[in-house]
C-alpha cells in the first residue's frame, strides 16, 4: 500500500486505514528492520572509528577501515532517516485505522450507551488517545532496537576494555535513582499551581455567567481585578516550579557526562599503562555514553504503557453496543399504529419501564405523563427505537421496529426533543437535516408551524444565518428542533417534552399548527402541562416505570395522584395552567377522533 507512493506527496482522499481495516504487520516490520539496523550500525561505529583513528594516527593510512567508517556513518544517517519515515507512516496508518473504528463504533451505537462519555472526552479519545494508541506498533519495534544500542554498547565496551565496562555498569543504577527523585519533587508543586489556575478559571466562569449583570452595573473593572487576584500567587508558584525543575534537571544533566568522564579516567589510565590505544579510548567514551542511553528505553516503555491505556479508551468507543437495522419496510399507507408487547427496559439493574401490552391507535395523539423518573423518556425512546427494549417488541403497523431498515424507520418516525442538538450549518440546513431532504418551502412551512419563523426572520441572514452566529435562546432552539421534526413528520411523531421551554401562548399556537399543517399521523407526546394532556386523545400515566393508568385527561383528573403529577412536576411554572384541585375545563376546539 504505502510503499507504492512517494512520501512527500499529499494524498488527502486515500483511505489508508480510514476504512478501519487493520494495517497488518508490514509497516511495523519496516520500522523494526530500519531501527535494528541503525542500532547495529551505532554499536559498531565507535569500534570501527577508534580503529580507523588509531591506524590513521599510526600510519597515516587506514586502508579499508576508512571507507568502512564512512559507510557506517552514512549508513546510520540513512537508516535513522528511514526509521523516522517508516515510524511516521506506521503511526499514521494505525492512528487512522483506530480512529475510524472508534468513530464508527460511536456513530452506530445505541445513543443511550454513550452517556458515560461527554463530548469533550470523545474528542480527546479520537485525537490524542487514538494518536497515542496508533504509536504503539512503531514504539514496540523501536523498543527492541533501543535495547540493542545500550546493551550492545556495554558488550562492545567489555570487548574494548573490561575495566571501563565495569566502571560504567556501577554508575548506571545511580542514573535511575536521580531520575526518580525528579518525578517526586515536581508532583506537589504542579498540583498547587493547577489549583490556583482553576481558581482563576472558575472566577472567570462565574463572571461570564453574570455578564449581563456586570455589563449593566458597569462593574467590569472590579470583576477583572477579582478574577485576576490569584495571579500573583500563581506567578510565585510558577517560579517555584521552575526552580524545582532546574534543580532536578541540573542533577540529572550532570550524570551522563560524569559517567563518561569516569570512563575516560579509567580508560586514560589504561591508555597510560599501554593497554589501550587513543582510538580505543575514543570508542570507550562513546560506548559509555551509548550505554547511559538505556533511559531512552524507559521512555519508550512509558509510551507503550500509555498507548495501551489509550487503546483501551478508544476501544470503549469501538465496542459500544450497536443499534443494528433490519431489512424490512413498512406497509404502504399504514395508519401508524404503535404497539408495545411485553416490553421491559432495565438500566443499571433496575427496571425503568414495563409495558405488557400497549396499543396506540394510528392517527391518535397520546400524552405520556408522570413524575420525573417515571419512565416517560424511556417510553419515548423505545417507541421510535432510540433504544431497544431488553425484553419484548415494539411494532409499528405490525412490523417489529428492529426488523426495519434504517431508512424505513427514520423516514416514518420523527423525534422532537426537549433539548435538540441541531448540528452545524445554517438554520435552514439544521431544520432540513434528516433521512429525507425537504424543499426550502417545506422548511419554511415547518418553521412556521413550530412558531420559529418569526424569530428566524429577525436574524441577520434569516434562514441562511449560521447557527453558530445566531443568538438563540433555549426556547428558540427548542422550536427549531420542533421544526426539524415537523419537516420530517412521518406516520409517527414522538415529542419528548419538546415544548417545555415555550410559554403557554406559543405552545398553544404550535399545537394548533401541528393539528392543521403538519402531516397527520400518530403522536406520542411526553408532557408536563395539564393543558397538553387535556388536548390529547388519550393519556398514558406512568409511575415508577409502569403504566399506572390509561384514559382521557378528564377521567384521570378525578384521581388525586394524577393531579399531583402536575402539581410537583410543573413546580411554580405552570401557574397559567390549571391549578391542582380545579376541575379541568375542556377546550372549545372540536375534538379529535377518539380511538
Amino acid at each position: 500500500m504505502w510503499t507504492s507512493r512517494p512520501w512527500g506527496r499529499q494524498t488527502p482522499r486515500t483511505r489508508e486505514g480510514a476504512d478501519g481495516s487493520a494495517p497488518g504487520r508490514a509497516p511495523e516490520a519496516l520500522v523494526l528492520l530500519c531501527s535494528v539496523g541503525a542500532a547495529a550500525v551505532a554499536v559498531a561505529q565507535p569500534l570501527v572509528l577508534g580503529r580507523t583513528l588509531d591506524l590513521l594516527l599510526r600510519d597515516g593510512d587506514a586502508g579499508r577501515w576508512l571507507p568502512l567508517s564512512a559507510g557506517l556513518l552514512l549508513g546510520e544517517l540513512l537508516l535513522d532517516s528511514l526509521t523516522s519515515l517508516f515510524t511516521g507512516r506506521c503511526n499514521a496508518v494505525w492512528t487512522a485505522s483506530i480512529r475510524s473504528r472508534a468513530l464508527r463504533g460511536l456513530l452506530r451505537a445505541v445513543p443511550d450507551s454513550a452517556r458515560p462519555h461527554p463530548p469533550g472526552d470523545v474528542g480527546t479519545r479520537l485525537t490524542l488517545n487514538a494518536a497515542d494508541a496508533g504509536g504503539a506498533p512503531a514504539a514496540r519495534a523501536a523498543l527492541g532496537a533501543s535495547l540493542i544500542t545500550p546493551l550492545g554498547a556495554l558488550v562492545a565496551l567489555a570487548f574494548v576494555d573490561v575495566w571501563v565496562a565495569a566502571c560504567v555498569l556501577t554508575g548506571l543504577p545511580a542514573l535511575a535513582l536521580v531520575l526518580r527523585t525528579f518525578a517526586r519533587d515536581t508532583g506537589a508543586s504542579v498540583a498547587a499551581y493547577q489549583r490556583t489556575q482553576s481558581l482563576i478559571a472558575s472566577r472567570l466562569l462565574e463572571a461570564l455567567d453574570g455578564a449581563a449583570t456586570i455589563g449593566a452595573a458597569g462593574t467590569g473593572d472590579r470583576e477583572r481585578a477579582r478574577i485576576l487576584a490569584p495571579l500573583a500567587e500563581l506567578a510565585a508558584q510558577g517560579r517555584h516550579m521552575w526552580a524545582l525543575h532546574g534543580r532536578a534537571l541540573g542533577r540529572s544533566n550532570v550524570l551522563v557526562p560524569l559517567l563518561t568522564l569516569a570512563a575516560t579516567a579509567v580508560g586514560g589510565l589504561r591508555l597510560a599503562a599501554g593497554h589501550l590505544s587513543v582510538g580505543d579510548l575514543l570508542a570507550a567514551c562513546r560506548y559509555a555514553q551509548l550505554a547511559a542511553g538505556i533511559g531512552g528505553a524507559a521512555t519508550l516503555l512509558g509510551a507503550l504503557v500509555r498507548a495501551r491505556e489509550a487503546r483501551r479508551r478508544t476501544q470503549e468507543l469501538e465496542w459500544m453496543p450497536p443499534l443494528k437495522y433490519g431489512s424490512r419496510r413498512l406497509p404502504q399507507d399504514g395508519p401508524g399504529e404503535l404497539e408495545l408487547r411485553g416490553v421491559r427496559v432495565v438500566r443499571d439493574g433496575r427496571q425503568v419501564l414495563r409495558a405488557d401490552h400497549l396499543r396506540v391507535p394510528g392517527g391518535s395523539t397520546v400524552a405520556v405523563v408522570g413524575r420525573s423518573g417515571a419512565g416517560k423518556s424511556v417510553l419515548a425512546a423505545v417507541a421510535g427505537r432510540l433504544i431497544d427494549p431488553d425484553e419484548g417488541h415494539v411494532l409499528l403497523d405490525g412490523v417489529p421496529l428492529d426488523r426495519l431498515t434504517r431508512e424505513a424507520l427514520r423516514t416514518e418516525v420523527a423525534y422532537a426533543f426537549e433539548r435538540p442538538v441541531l448540528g452545524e450549518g445554517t438554520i435552514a440546513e439544521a431544520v432540513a437535516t434528516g433521512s429525507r431532504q425537504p424543499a426550502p418551502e417545506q422548511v419554511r412551512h415547518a418553521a412556521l408551524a413550530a412558531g420559529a419563523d418569526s424569530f428566524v426572520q429577525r436574524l441577520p441572514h434569516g434562514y441562511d444565518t449560521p447557527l453558530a452566529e445566531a443568538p438563540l435562546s433555549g426556547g428558540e432552539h427548542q422550536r427549531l428542533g420542533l421544526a426539524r421534526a415537523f419537516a420530517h413528520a412521518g406516520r409517527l411523531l414522538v415529542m419528548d417534552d419538546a415544548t417545555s421551554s415555550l410559554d403557554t401562548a406559543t405552545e398553544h399556537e404550535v399545537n394548533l399548527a401541528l393539528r392543521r399543517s403538519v402531516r397527520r399521523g400518530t403522536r406520542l407526546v411526553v408532557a408536563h402541562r395539564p393543558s397538553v394532556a387535556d388536548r390529547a386523545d388519550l393519556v398514558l400515566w406512568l409511575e415508577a416505570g409502569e403504566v399506572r393508568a390509561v384514559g382521557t385527561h378528564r377521567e384521570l383528573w378525578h384521581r388525586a395522584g394524577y393531579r399531583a403529577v402536575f402539581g410537583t412536576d410543573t413546580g411554580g411554572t405552570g401557574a397559567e395552567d390549571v391549578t391542582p384541585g380545579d376541575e379541568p375545563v375542556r377546550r372549545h376546539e372540536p375534538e379529535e377522533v377518539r380511538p
Partner: protein
Amino acid sequence: MTSAGYGAARALDADGPRDDGTGALSRLAPPARRFLARRKGVLARLALWSLAESGQAFLVGYGVARSVDEGFLAGDPRRGLLWLAVALVAVLSGAPVVRGVFAQLAGLTEPLRDGLVRRAVDRSLDRAARGGPGGTDRAAVSRLTNQVEIARDSFAGLVLTLRSFVFTAAGALLGLLSLNPALLVVVLPPLTGGLALFLCTLRPMAAAQRRALATDEALGDHAARSRAALRDLTACGTGPRAERRGADLVADAAAQARTLAGWATVRTAALGVSGQLPVLALLVAVPWLRARGVSAGALLGAFTYLVQSLLPALHTLMTALGAAGARLLVVLDRVLGPVPDAAPRATGPSQAVSTACHGRGCGTGARASADVVRPVPGPAAPAVDLRSVTLSYGVRAEPVLDALDLRVAPGEHLAVVGPSGIGKSTLTRLVAGTLAPSRGEVRVAGHLVTGRAAAELSALRVLVPQEAYVFSGTVGDNLAYLRTDVRRGELDAAVRVLGLELLVGRLGGLAGPVRPAELSPGERQLIALARAYLSPAPLLLLDEATCHLDPASEARAEEALTARPGTLLVVAHRLSSAVRADRILVLDGVRAVCGTHEELLGCSRLYRDLTGHWQAGPPQRV
C-alpha cells in the same frame, strides 16, 4: 498528556485565521519584540548564565583533550587525572548553572503567562459583555487555561533549547578553535550545511504542523459534536452521513501525518548531516590535520566536542523548533490575534409599521406617526421614555422592535408580556442602555442612555437578568454588590423583606461564604433581587428575574420591590406577575399594546390568549 494536546489541537478554532503561519508570524512579531525589549535585564542575565554553560562545555572537552595529550599519552597519568579533574569540576558546576538558567527562565515565562491570562480574561469578559451568541462558552474557559499553559511550556522549551544550542555550539566551536584552528575548517562545512538544510525545512515543516493540528482539531470537533448529537443523528437517520464525513477527516489527518513524516525524515537527515558528517570529515582529514600539527589529544577533544556537546544540542534544537515552535505560534495567535466579531450588531433604520403605546389607555395597534408625542400625566421627566425606537439585528432582518413609543411614569409598575423570543429582553436591554437602538431614542429619568458610560447608567437603573449573577465571596459582598457602602441594618432589612433569612442562615450569616454552584437557581435569583432592592438607582428592570421562584416567593419579592421607592419594569414570566402591575405592555412582534389588565382583555386578542387561551368562556383574572 491527556487534555493538553487536545487543547492544542482545539486551539485552532474555526473562526481563527488559517494560513501557513507567515501571517501569524508577522502579527506576533511586534508584541513579541515589545515583550522581549521590556525584559532586557532578564535576557542579559540569561545570557550570562548561558555563557557559563558554554564555558562549562568548553572546559569539559578541553580537559579531556589535555588529559590525553599531556597526561595519559605522555606517560603522566597524574597530570591526565588532574586535567580530568578540571573537566569534573566543570561538569559538577553544571547543576548550579542549570538552576540559574531556570531562575531567569521563570523571569520570562511567568510574565508571559500573566500577560496571556490577563488578555484571555479581558477577551472573554469583553465577548460576554457584547453578548456573544450561544450563552456562556464553558469550553472556552478550559481551553483558555490549557492554551495559556501550552504557550508557556512551548515558550520555555524554545528559549531553553535555542539558548542552549547557541551557547553550546559557541562553546564547542571555541574549544575546537583553541585546540587547533584547522579543526574548524574541517568541521564547520558539514555542520553549517546540515543546519542550513534544517533551517530550510523549518517553514514548510511549521506549515505542515499547523495543517496537521488543524485537521486534528477538525476531527476532534467532529467527534465531540457527533457525540453531543448522537441521539439526534440516530433519530434523524443521519448517522451514515456523519460517518462519511468522519472518514474523510480521518483520511485528511492521515495524509497530513504522512506529510509530516516526510518532513521529519528530512529533519532527521539534516541532523545526521550536521552531526555525523563532521565526524567523518574529521576522520578523513586526520592525515591533513596531523600534518598541520594537530595532536592525538586534540583530535580526541574534537571528537568529544562533536559527540558529547554538539550532537545532543542539535538533536534537542531540531525536535523543539519543529514541534513546540509551530504550537507556540498557533496558540499565541489564538490568544493575542484579532478578535473574531461575535455578536450581530443592531444596524440600519428600517421602514415598517409603527406601533404606539402612549400613556394610559389602549393603543389600537394602528399606524401612528413616530413624531407624535402625546401629553402624559405625571412629572415632566418620565422614568422611562422611548420614542419611536426601532431595533433590528441586521440589514436584511426584520426588526425586533419597530418604532416603539413607551412612557413609564416615576413610581409606576409596568409589566411586559408576550410570546417567548418576541423582544422583551431586547426592550430591557435598550432601556438599560446596554443595547443601542437602530433608530429612535431612549431616555431614563430624562437622560439619554445610548452611549452613556456604564458607571453613569448604574446610577439611573438596575438590570436584573434571568441568569442571576452570584459570585464566590461572602453573602454580604454579594448583596452589597451595587452599593458597597450599605449599612448592616439595611442589609438585614433586605434579607427579611425578600424572605432570604433561611438561605442566609444556612450559609452562615452575612459573613458566610457563597459557593454559586451550590445554590439553586431560585436562591441565586433571590440574592440578585435583594441586591437590586439595595441599589440606590431609581429604576429597576427585572428581565424574567423571578422565573425560578415559586409563585409565593415571586409575589413576596415583587411586593417588596414595588414598595421600594422608584419605578419597576418587569418582564413577566407568568401572568400572575403581570396582573400585579399598574399597566401591562403586550408585545407580539407586529404590534405593541399597552393598558391595564381589564383594558387589555378588551382589546388584545393575544392577551386574552395568554391569560386563558385554553379555558372556556370569558377570560378571568387569575
